[in-house]
């Protein structure tokens, strides 16, 4: 658990940052210049904040009396610009931490294997592509035997093809290495794909922090990830495969059908349902091509963004629908209104 609370004044921007990062991938998300990089510099020990307290797993890294050096913090950093040592081979870069961090060297084969770095070992950073450089930088940070991995926009300098090349490695990292990761980004797709917890920052302040699923389903917070990203993340369990290949899953609001995916009965899933993929109807419609029709209750209306409860009582889950203001009026949508949600498409995330 990483606990961060500090203030720091720059000319033109004063930061007041406080959040907690449990295990898993915590995304520090916000527009450029909102203080994300300053926050991670303070966490890594590269910047001394004016005041505050930073602790990792109960170990104080910074407070009024303590200010551990970056060397003593055991925080592995992957920077946007990789920062490989240009005069060393890839192998020498990867082995650089091993002299000072015991226990790092024995992971050499495993980590070079996991990131497929063997073919690059004898090359110099100048000859690597941007994506390869980032992979080496990730390997080097992991080989410094860190207690926390901090990644500062590791994909921002890469083009779409390189991003797509690195992304699976990051997912492997999240799933295979039990290491908390603080992932700084201003890219919604990256956050959605990697994060378990999200810290939203704006102009030097933390606006909100919490689990990704809760933020996505919150009509006030979801638009901060971009209007098109508002939606809900609901739990589902695979029930059976239908004869035509469709897969039936159980949700809080009843069964749903998903197109033929290779899923085993009993498997737990997270379904992401975007608000603009949901149509609301006051009466059960007939003769629709959409397969998934769920009974819902309106809990809150914010402009055109309608918050819905799926299922009853304690088991209910939140869902969002994006409609026009005219529809809100025409359908007389208000808290308590019962209606039907027609779900046009669903994306499946492994749980």
């Amino acid at each position, binding site marked *: 658990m990483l606990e961060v609370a500090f203030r720091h004044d720059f000319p033109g921007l004063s930061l007041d940052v406080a959040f907690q990062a449990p295990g898993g991938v915590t995304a520090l998300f916000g527009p450029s210049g909102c203080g994300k990089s300053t926050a991670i510099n303070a966490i890594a020990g590269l910047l001394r904040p004016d005041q505050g307290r930073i602790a990792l797993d109960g170990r104080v890294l910074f407070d009024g009396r303590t200010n551990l050096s970056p*060397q003593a913090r055991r925080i592995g950093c992957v*920077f946007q610009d990789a*920062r490989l040592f240009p005069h060393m081979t890839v192998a020498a870069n990867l082995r650089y931490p091993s002299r*000072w*961090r015991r226990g790092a060297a024995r992971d050499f084969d495993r980590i070079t294997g996991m990131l497929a770095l063997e073919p690059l070992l*004898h090359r110099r*950073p100048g000859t690597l592509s941007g994506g390869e450089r980032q992979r080496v930088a990730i390997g080097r940070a992991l080989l410094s035997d860190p207690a926390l991995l901090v990644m500062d926009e590791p994909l921002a300098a890469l083009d779409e093809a390189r991003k797509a090349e690195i992304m699976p490695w990051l997912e492997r990292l999240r799933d295979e290495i039990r290491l908390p990761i603080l992932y700084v980004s201003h890219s919604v797709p990256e956050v959605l794909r990697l994060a378990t917890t999200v810290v939203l920052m704006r102009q030097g302040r933390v606006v909100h922090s919490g689990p990704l699923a809760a933020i996505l389903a919150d009509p006030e917070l979801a638009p901060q990830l971009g209007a098109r990203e508002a939606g809900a993340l609901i739990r589902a369990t695979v029930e059976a495969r239908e004869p035509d290949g469709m897969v039936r899953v159980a949700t809080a609001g009843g069964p749903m059908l998903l197109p033929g995916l290779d899923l085993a009965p009993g498997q737990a899933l997270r379904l992401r349902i975007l608000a603009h993929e949901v149509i609301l109807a006051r009466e059960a419609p007939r003769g629709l091509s959409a397969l998934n029709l769920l009974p819902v209750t309106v809990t809150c209306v914010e402009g055109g963004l309608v918050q819905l409860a799926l299922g009853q009582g304690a088991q209910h889950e939140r869902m969002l629908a994006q409609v026009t203001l005219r529809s809100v009026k025409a359908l007389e949508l208000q808290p308590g209104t019962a209606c039907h949600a027609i779900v046009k498409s669903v994306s499946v995330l492994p749980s």
Partner: protein
Amino acid sequence: MIPTDWLGPQEWQAVRLSLRVAAVATLAGLPPAVAVAWLLARRRFPGHGLLSGIVHLPLILPPVVTGYLLLVTFGTQGPVGSLLKPLGIVFAFRWTGAALACGIMSFPLMVRAIRLGFEAVDPKLEQAAATLGAPRAWIFVTVTLPLILPAILAGATLGFAKAMGEFGATITFVSNIPGQTQTLPSAIYALLQVPSGDAAALRLVLVSVVIAMGAVLVSEWLAWRMTARMNGRAEGRA
């Protein structure tokens, strides 16, 4: 084949002495030049401007003034010279004095070149090394120094060339004694004072040009190799 009688014994002596003086001046001056360049490039402290001024003084002062100040300070009667004399260290009218004068005169040039190198190194690389657990001194040796090696080389070449050509401060401080303190420029100067010396002077001028060009070419080549290695063009299989 170069005929050995192409230069007279006294002229050979001047060439050898000059090479030795310049080499000692450069090698002895390099570590303090790196230290001062680092201080000026990376640290902000009271007296920063003063230090920079003192380092650059020999570049601006008339060399005769520098030579005279050295004579007053390091001469056998001077405050430093009289302290060092019981230890067997004498500068006045010795080749060591010539090396001291040349070292002081070339120091600002070395510092300037190396300082530019420090300023060009991205401190972010050093920060990255710190997050990997390396202590500061280790980072300096394994990251900073290798990255500024081309600048150190440039500074050393510049310093060596300056030391080879230093005249005013040397002749003021240690005079012009053949075999003792008569460096290449002093020998050329002495030859030009006698009616029959023109031909020998011209030969020594040729030698200085060749040495200076050689030094520049070697350092250019070394710098090119280092950059090539860093950019990975000379695919180094470590």
